[in-house]
């Protein structure tokens, strides 16, 4: 199992070999039947081996370029169909003057933009408030010089929080 693509002949050869190996492995439990394995257990074992081989075979296919191309075509077709249905429904809605998905999208975008705008304003205000709070809490270098000369420390809090220091 791998990503490398192989030629169709090699691919077929690999698949044949895998199923041949699976058939040999699936027969093994029946050969061991006389050694004490009950018939239902032997069948279950053979079934497991068969499922595993089948699974491996699918896994190879699901990784192949052929599947990838089929997936691409299927999705493109489905998208195209969906678009056509949507266009038709939009025309119908338009005729009956009903809101379409597009109208709702526009509304959602408008509300989203408004929400974004308000959030940005809030963030800006919060940042400014934080900046002001930080300035208020930080010791003023000019004042600290003054403090060394200040004889009365009781004046400091009132001065630091005074309106003159707020800008």
């Amino acid at each position: 199992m791998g990503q490398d693509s192989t030629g169709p002949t090699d691919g077929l050869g690999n698949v044949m070999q895998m199923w041949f190996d699976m058939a040999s492995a699936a027969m093994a439990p029946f050969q061991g039947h006389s050694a004490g394995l009950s018939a239902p257990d032997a069948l279950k074992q053979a079934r497991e081996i068969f499922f595993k081989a089948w699974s491996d075979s699918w896994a190879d296919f699901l990784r192949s370029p052929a599947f990838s191309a089929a997936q691409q075509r299927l999705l493109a077709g489905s998208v195209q169909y969906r678009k056509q249905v949507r266009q038709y429904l939009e025309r119908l809605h338009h005729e009956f003057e009903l809101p379409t998905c597009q109208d709702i999208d526009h509304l959602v975008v408008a509300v989203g933009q408004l929400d974004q705008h308000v959030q940005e304003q809030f963030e800006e205000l919060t940042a400014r408030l934080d900046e002001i709070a930080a300035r208020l809490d930080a010791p003023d270098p000019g004042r600290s010089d003054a403090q060394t000369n200040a004889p009365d420390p009781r004046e400091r809090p009132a001065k630091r929080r005074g309106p003159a220091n707020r800008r």
Partner: protein
Amino acid sequence: MSTNGHSENPWLRAQQSLLEESLANLHRMARLPQAWLQAERVKKGATPSDVVYEKDRLRLLRYRPAGPIKHRTPLVFVFALVNRPYILDILPKKSVVAHFVEAGFDTYLIDWGTPTAADRSRTLDTYVNGYLPSVVTYLRKRAESPQVNVLGYCMGGTMSAMFTALHPRLVKNLILLAAGIDFSTREGLLNLWADSRSFDVDAFVDAYGNCPAEFLQACFLMLNPVRNVVAKPVDLLERLDDKRRLEEFLTMEAWLNDNVPVPGEVFREFVKYLYQQNLLVKNRMPVGRHIVDLRHITCPVLNLMASQDTLVPAAQSEPFNDLVGSADRKAIKLSTGHIGLAMGSAAQRELWPLAVAWLAERS
């Protein structure tokens, strides 16, 4: 001729056992209507929980503690947008959530809800920088904790990694469970199918709006069609006379078929930026106005992955620990599949006790 004589003959013995098996199969078939009724009564969620926070379609579930809360930092599970989150708490003996609840964690789970056509313009930014921060802010207030522990599963893990990189101060510990990080690997079929040469995601989203749940379901089925379409019904037949195994099977199937559509723009971003351009590992992943740089993740990281995962191959999760800035990082790889990592017996027995202990040490 005695019965013993029959059983000594290998061919007669084989015939006898085949006949017995056929009769057993008939008995099992007779139970099918009962199984149908049982399927309709499948429970979704094992651990009692309450909705504690809601925003738009999002619901935050809080699991009722089994005893006193031993760890102050709350734990929040972030699930993918493609399925319903109850897989993490699906059955009493197979619940990831229960491990953490029983260990004394204040445990929460985000249920993103089912998006409608009106949600097609939601982007990864809506989730990573909108809903997740809202939930975390709520949890920080509620638990009076400066940070939260985050556990992200699958696509939820990828979103959790983005969230932690963009809001590193909010996350105390990060656990990723089968999370896609490096999308360059071609081990997984989804990586091949989403290749830009074969899948025009722009045309798809422009035409469909949201990515339909049926499309996702078909993709998941095609990952192993023989197993999913042929072998499973055979498995079901064999489990019909075992009530417990049948319940497990039906619960699992109910979850697997409970896909939800993915908001169109999220799907476009996920396919284009991750599957096609692999921007997350290049530290160039755009989420709204921000760029995710995984090096900004500095909290302890536990990266859990499954070596047989076909949906998110281990190679897709493994590089994460080398891309983050954390000094405390650990990876555990378990020999199981994508779902087995959450609810498999080996995971329940070995992995989750380890993960709980890892988180308890750091909470």
